[in-house]
Structures are given as structure tokens and as C-alpha cells.
């Protein structure tokens, strides 16, 4: 994995340099105009957030039911990234909404559930930080719960009548606005690669922290 880090970093940097050019040259959406260009970062941020929570959920399950310490390290790393990318989505959304809807925030199903999902993963990190010994297992349960509720957040716009656009916007993009597909695809790929890179770096940090903890324990056991 370490050998992949540098080439992936170069590709990601190139995509992030290319994306703004494509976004700037993409056509304006007919009713929203310039502000719609937040779409190219807002939706990929949620994609990265969902990648994080899926990784966290799977790794949490592996840790809880198989007891693999490496899975726990992956889970906590993914949970942190879920919070970071969720925060980007939660901040860029209201900035878009202020212009498009005339309001910063509306307590409607999608926005409220997205905020709650973010808070579940903030809760995961708080359990890890302040829960004391054994909090890893409790946090793993929180991670699985957060992942289990996430599909409801995704489909909430289709179930309830909300102000937020439906999930069909992105799948229908090639038909409704084919010129918007290249910038969106490049931006999405850049976000996913950035997520992978940040996850690799964070897992490495978790590994070194585990090594340090083991050394401390060995040092204490030796009685010195």
C-alpha cells in the first residue's frame, strides 16, 4: 500500500488541478446559474462521506465479531474521514441553499437526517476518545448503527416530499445535462482518491499509535 501512496497522490493532485478548469467551462444550470457549481464539490463530498461510513461499518463488524485489531484501526480512521467529509457536505449545502432556496437551512427530512448521521459519527469519535478501556467495542457498535441507518438518509428524498432534489439527479445527468458529466466525474474521482489517500495516512497513524501502546505496555510489564 505504501508504494501506491506517491503515485496516487500525484494522480489526485492532477485531478484536483484539472477539475476547476472543467467546472469553470461547464455550462450554467438554467435556473440556478453560477451557484449550481457547488454541486461539483458538494455531491462528491457526500460520496466520500458514504465511502467512509461503509468502510467504518464493515471494519467495525470485523472487529466486533472477529476481533481483528487491524479492523479497529481501519474503522476509527474511516470514522474520522466520515466526519470530515460530512462536515464539508453540511457546510457547502447551506451555502448553495442560501442562493437556490433563499434559506440557509430547513428542518426537512434529508437535511435533518444528514445532520443526525454526522452526529452519530461524531459520537463514535467521542466514545473512542472519552469512553475509557473497552470503548473500542462500544464504538464499533455505534459505527455499525451509523452505517445501517445511512441508506435511509440516502433514500429520504425519495420517500418524503422534501425541498432537496431527489437521488435521480445524478444517475440522470448523462441524459439531462451531458456537458456536466465530465467535470462531475473528474471531481468525484478526485474526491474518492483523496479519501483513499487520507484513509491510508490515517491508518498508518493508527498503526504507529498501536505500536507505541504495545511498547508502553511492555515497558510497564518489565517493571522499569
Amino acid at each position: 500500500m505504501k508504494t501506491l501512496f506517491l503515485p496516487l497522490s500525484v494522480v489526485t493532485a492532477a485531478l484536483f488541478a484539472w477539475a476547476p478548469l472543467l467546472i469553470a467551462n461547464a455550462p450554467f444550470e438554467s435556473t440556478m446559474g453560477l451557484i449550481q457549481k457547488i454541486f461539483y464539490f458538494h455531491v462528491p463530498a457526500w460520496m466520500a462521506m458514504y465511502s467512509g461510513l461503509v468502510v467504518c461499518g464493515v471494519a467495525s463488524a470485523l472487529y466486533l465479531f472477529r476481533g481483528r485489531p487491524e479492523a479497529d484501526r481501519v474503522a476509527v480512521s474511516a470514522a474520522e474521514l466520515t466526519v470530515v467529509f460530512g462536515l464539508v457536505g453540511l457546510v457547502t449545502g447551506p451555502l448553495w441553499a442560501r442562493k437556490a432556496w433563499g434559506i440557509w437551512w430547513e428542518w426537512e427530512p434529508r437535511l435533518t437526517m444528514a445532520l443526525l448521521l454526522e452526529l452519530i459519527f461524531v459520537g463514535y469519535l467521542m466514545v473512542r476518545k472519552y469512553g475509557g478501556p473497552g470503548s473500542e467495542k462500544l464504538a464499533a457498535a455505534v459505527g455499525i448503527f451509523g452505517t445501517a441507518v445511512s441508506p435511509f438518509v440516502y433514500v429520504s428524498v425519495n420517500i418524503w416530499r422534501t425541498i432537496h432534489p431527489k437521488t435521480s439527479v445524478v444517475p440522470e445527468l448523462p441524459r439531462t445535462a451531458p456537458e456536466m458529466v465530465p467535470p462531475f466525474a473528474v471531481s468525484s474521482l478526485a474526491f474518492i482518491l483523496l479519501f483513499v489517500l487520507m484513509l491510508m495516512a490515517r491508518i498508518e497513524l493508527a498503526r504507529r499509535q498501536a505500536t507505541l501502546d504495545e511498547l508502553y505496555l511492555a515497558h510497564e510489564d518489565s517493571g522499569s
Partner: protein
Amino acid sequence: MKTLIALTFALLMAASVAAGQPPAAQSEFVPLSQAPAAEQLPAAPLLIAAYSFFLVAVVGYLWTIWRRLNKVDAELQALRQKTRPQH
């Protein structure tokens, strides 16, 4: 003269009554693009704020990883030196 005063008075009355009337109710949707410039929000600052926030969040998070890695490495090195057998 009386006619002029009466006419002025009537005009002033009419003007004040007209000013006191509520504006005509809007009967149909008006696109925001047709609204007066003062009532339109500029999009560019919001767009720049969104992109800037993303950059700050990512760079800030990467900085915390880098800082934590340095701290753990320093602790690892100190602990290894401490536990190294003395000759």
C-alpha cells in the same frame, strides 16, 4: 383662489391615501432573475466560501494527521531509547 386651495387639498389627500394603500398583491411567480438587483444575492461569494471551506477542512485535517504522526514518532523514539539495554 378657493378652487386652487381645494384642488391642492384634494391632490394632497389623494396622494396620502394612495401612499397608505398596501402594494398590489403579486398574482404570479416572478423569476428571481427579474427581481431588483438589491434583492438578489450574489452567487460568487457563496461559491468561493464553499470551495474555500473544503480546502481549509482538508488541509486542516491533513495537518492534524502530520502533527499526530510527528508526536507519535517522537514518543516512539524516546521510549525505544529509554528501553535500550544499557552496557
